[in-house]
C-alpha cells in the first residue's frame, strides 16, 4: 500500500485518522448558546415580512425596472417605430430582428417614409440590458414592468410586433391611417401631435 501524502488543505483529518482520534465538535459547548440561537428565530416570527404571496399577490416593480418591451405609438395611433434596426444593432444578445418597409399613401403605419414591418424580440435571448431602448432614436421602444415571461415552448417566447405594440388609447386609430391633417413627420417627431381626436 502506498503512503498517503496529506494534502495541505485537509485540516489535519489525515493525521487524525492515522492516530485513530475521535473528532470533537468544538462549537456546541453549552445549552445556553443553543437557546440564544432559537431566540433569534422566535423574535423573527413577529417581524413584518418582506416577501409576498406570489402569484396571488403581485407587487409593482421599482421604477425603471427592465421588463418586457413595448413599441409605443403617437397619440393618434401611428407607430413610433421607423424600422431603423438600431435596437437590433445595439443588442448584445442578438435578440431583436427588424425589417423595414416603405410607408405608402394607401398604407401608412408611422409618420415619415419608413416603418418597421417585422419586429421580433426573442425573450429566450434577451438579457434585459436596455441598450436597445437607449439606441432607439424615436423613443419607440421602451421597457414595461412586466416580468412574467415564462412559457412552455420556444416559439411562444419570440414576441411579434402585435405582441409588443402598445395598446391603443381612447381616441387613437389603429394604423394604417394617414398623418394628422396638415402635419408632417417632423411635427410628430417634435411631439406636436397631442390629443388628436380622429373621428
Amino acid at each position: 500500500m502506498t503512503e498517503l501524502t496529506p494534502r495541505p488543505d485537509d485540516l489535519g483529518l489525515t493525521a487524525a485518522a492515522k492516530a485513530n482520534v475521535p473528532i470533537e465538535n468544538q462549537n456546541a459547548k453549552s445549552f445556553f448558546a443553543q437557546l440564544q440561537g432559537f431566540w433569534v428565530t422566535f423574535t423573527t416570527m413577529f417581524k413584518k415580512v418582506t416577501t409576498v404571496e406570489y402569484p396571488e399577490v403581485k407587487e409593482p416593480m421599482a421604477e425603471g425596472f427592465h421588463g418586457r418591451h413595448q413599441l409605443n405609438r403617437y397619440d393618434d395611433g401611428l407607430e413610433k417605430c421607423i424600422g431603423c434596426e438600431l435596437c437590433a444593432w445595439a443588442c448584445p444578445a442578438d435578440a431583436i430582428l427588424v425589417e423595414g418597409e416603405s410607408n405608402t399613401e394607401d398604407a401608412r403605419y408611422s409618420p415619415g417614409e419608413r416603418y418597421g414591418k417585422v419586429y421580433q424580440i426573442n425573450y429566450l435571448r434577451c438579457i434585459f440590458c436596455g441598450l436597445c431602448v437607449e439606441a432607439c432614436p424615436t423613443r419607440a421602444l421602451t421597457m414595461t414592468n412586466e416580468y412574467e415571461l415564462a412559457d412552455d415552448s420556444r416559439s411562444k417566447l419570440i414576441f411579434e410586433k402585435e405582441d409588443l405594440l402598445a395598446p391603443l388609447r381612447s381616441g387613437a386609430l389603429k394604423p394604417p391611417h394617414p398623418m394628422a391633417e396638415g402635419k408632417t413627420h417632423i411635427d410628430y417627431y417634435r411631439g406636436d401631435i397631442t390629443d388628436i381626436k380622429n373621428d
Partner: protein
Amino acid sequence: MTPEQALLETEVAIEMITVVIDGFEVTVPKGTLVIRAAEKLGIQIPRFCDHPLLKPAGACRQCLVDIEINGRAFPKPQASCTIPVENNMIVKTQLTSTVAEKAQEGIMEFLLINHPLDCAVCDKGGECPLQNQAMSTGRPESRFEGVKRTFEKPISISSQVLLDRERCVLCARCTRFSEEIAGDPFITLNERGALQQVGIYEKDPFESYYSGNTVQICPVGALTGTSYRFRARPFDLVSIDSACEHCASGCAMRTDIRRGKTLRRLAGDDPSVNEEWNCDKGRWAFKYLTNRERVTTPMIRGADGELHETSWPEAIAFAAAGLKDKRAGVLVGGRTTVEDAYGYSKFARVALGTNDIDFRARPHSDEETSFLSRVALNLKTTYKDIDVADQVVLLGFEPEEESPIVFLRIYKQVSKRALPVLSDAPFASRGSEKLGAVLISDLSKIANLTTKSVVIVGERLAETRGAFSSVYELINKSGAKLAWIPRRSGEPGALAAGAIPTLLPGGRPVTDPAARVDVAAAWSVESLPTSQGRSTSEILLALNVKNLDAVVIGGVDPLDISSTALTQLLNSFVVSLEISHSAITAVADVVLPVAAVIEKSGSYLDWQGSPRVFEKAIADSLSRSDVRILSMLADEMGSPINLPTVSATAREIASLGKWDGTPVAFEKSVSEKITELGEKLNLKSWRLLLDLGTLQGGEANLAGTARKASAHISKARAEKIGVKSGELISISSELGSLELPVEICEMADDLIWVPRNSIGSQVIANLGFVNGQVKVIKA
C-alpha cells in the same frame, strides 16, 4: 503618329518622384495625386468627391492638407485630391498638422450644417463615408442652432434611383460618373450656393443603363436604389463575392444576402474586367428567382396529362426509363455554368451516346457552328486589347445593349483618345452615337486593319449568311485581333465544355479519332459517338419528324429559338431541368428542379475566356446544380458520368485540359445573294439590354428605365408610307404582325429595325423570324 499612339507603341519609362508625407518618404510615379501617395503609406485623408476612376474635382474640400514645396508653404491648406506630387514636396496631413486638422474639421462642420442626420432611416447608415468620417474628423458636438435646409424628399431621378437632396454633399461623383464613364450626361448640378442640388434634364428621361453605379459611389445616402430602399441594414447582410449571370462581360459582383434572400447586388472590383462598374441589369435583375413559381420538387406527367409531384428516386427512374436506349438530344441553353455545361456534354456523349447537343437557344447557322468550333475557341483577345486598339470594328454586335461593360471599355478609349469605331448596325443607336461609330453597310468598307485593331463579332452575325467567312478572311489578311462576344453568360463556357455538336470538351473535334481516344480514356468509356451531331434547330426538327424520341432541356425559352420550337417538342419525351415553371415545364414529361445561381457554386467563362468563379451564396440550400442531377440520371441509366459534385467536375475539366492537336480548318460559306425586295423591307433587330428577358422578371423599377420600343425607318421610306415620326406603323409577315411607333433616322431605305424582345415588339413571337422580309404599312 499622335503622341497617344506613340505612348501605346512603346513602354515609356515613368519618372518617379519622392515626397515626404507626415515625415515618411514615399516614391510614386509622376502625376500621382497627393491623396493617393498618402494612401500608399497607409495614411487615410478623409474625402468624399475623390474617386480613383473619376477625374479630380476638388468639390467637397474635405481632403485639405498642408503642403510645402522647396521650403515655400502654400498660404492655405490645399485639397490633396487635386494636387499631383512634385519633387521636394512636404505634405502634412491632419495627423501632423493642426492647420490641416482644423481645416478638415471646419469643412466637416460646413457639410453637416445642411445634412439632415437622418441616419436612422437612411439606407447608407452603417456603411456611410459621411457617417464614418464625421466620427473620425468632425467635432463631437454641433454648434449649429439654425433651421436646416430641407427639400421635398425623395425625388425620382428614374424609376430605379431616388434622390434625397438635403443629404447631398455636392461631391459631383454621380454627375462625373454619368458624364465621364457612362457618357449619359442626364444628371447635373443645378443652381448655385446653398441651393445647389443634383437635378435631371427635365426633357430627357434618365435612361442610362449604368445609373446604379451612381447609387454605389454616392458617399452619402443622397442617391438610393428604389428596390433596396428601406429593405435592410448593412450589418444584417452577408456579402458574397459572385459573378454576374447576365451577359458574357464577366463582371465581378458582390451579392448581399439576408436570411436566404438576395437583397441587393453591387459591382465588384476587378480592374481587368469591369473596373468598379456594372450595368443596371446586373445590379437589379435578380428577382427572377422569386418572380415565377419555383419548381421545388421533382414532377412527372401522369396518365391524366398533368404534372404530379413525386420523389427524387421515382422521377429519376421515370426520366431514365424514357431516355435509355432512345434516340435523344440535349438542349443546354446559354445560361449554364461551365461545370453544368460539361455535365450536359458528358451526359450526351456517355449516357445518350450522341453528339446531338447544342447550347445555342437563339437563331444560329452551320457556318456559325464551324466558326465557333474552329475559330472562336482559340481567340485570345482581351479587354486589354481594346485599351490599346487603334480601331474597333463591331459586327453583329451592339455593345451597349448586348455587353455593357465592353461598351464602357470602348467608350473609355473613345472619350480619352478618340478611338475610331466602325459598326455594321443599320442605324446609329444611342450606343453608336456615344461611340461616334462610323456605320458601314458591308465588310468591304473596313480599311486600315492592323494587328492592333480589334474586330468584335456578336452572336447576331450568324443571322447573315457568309458573314463569318468574310470576317475570317479579313482577320487572316490583316492579322487584326478577333473577339467573339455572345450575349449570354454561359455561351463561352458551354463552347469550351463541348456543348456543341462538333466538339468534345476542351475544343476536341468529334470527328478526330485521336481526340475521341483522348476523351474516352479520361472518361473510362470504350468509345464515343463519331459523327457530327445536330444543332438546336436540327434537334427540334428531328424531334418533330420523329427522328429523335427524347430531349433533355436546360434553361431554354423556346421563343428565343423560333416560334415553332415549342410545338416541335410536343410529340417527344421531354426531360426539363428548371428553376421555375416555364413554357418548357408546361410540356415536359419530367421536371427536375435545379439550383439557381445563388444556390450553387460554379464558374462562367467571360468572353475573354477567363473563368469567373463564384461560390454558393446561400449555404443551407437543398437545391442541386444541374451536373449533380445529370450524374444521378446517368447512374440510373447504367452509364455513369461520375460527376457527383461541382468541385469534382471542375477537377475533371482541369485534368482533361485543352486540345493541343491541330484544329480543323474553318469551312467557308458563300454570301447570300440579295433577293429582290419589291415593296417589302428587310427586317433588322437586336435585343435591348432591358427588355422582356426571363431573367429580368419581377423588377418593375428596372423595367421602368427600359428604352421604349419603336420601329426605325429612313426618311424617304417614311414619306413613301406616309407616316410622321411617332405615328404607328404595322409590320407584318406571313405569320403575324406588330404595330409600333415610327422613329425616323439615317438608314438605308430598304431596311427596318425593331427591338427584338421589348414590350409590343416580340419579333420571333409576332413575326415568326428575326431575319427576313416584312411588309410595312401605315397603321
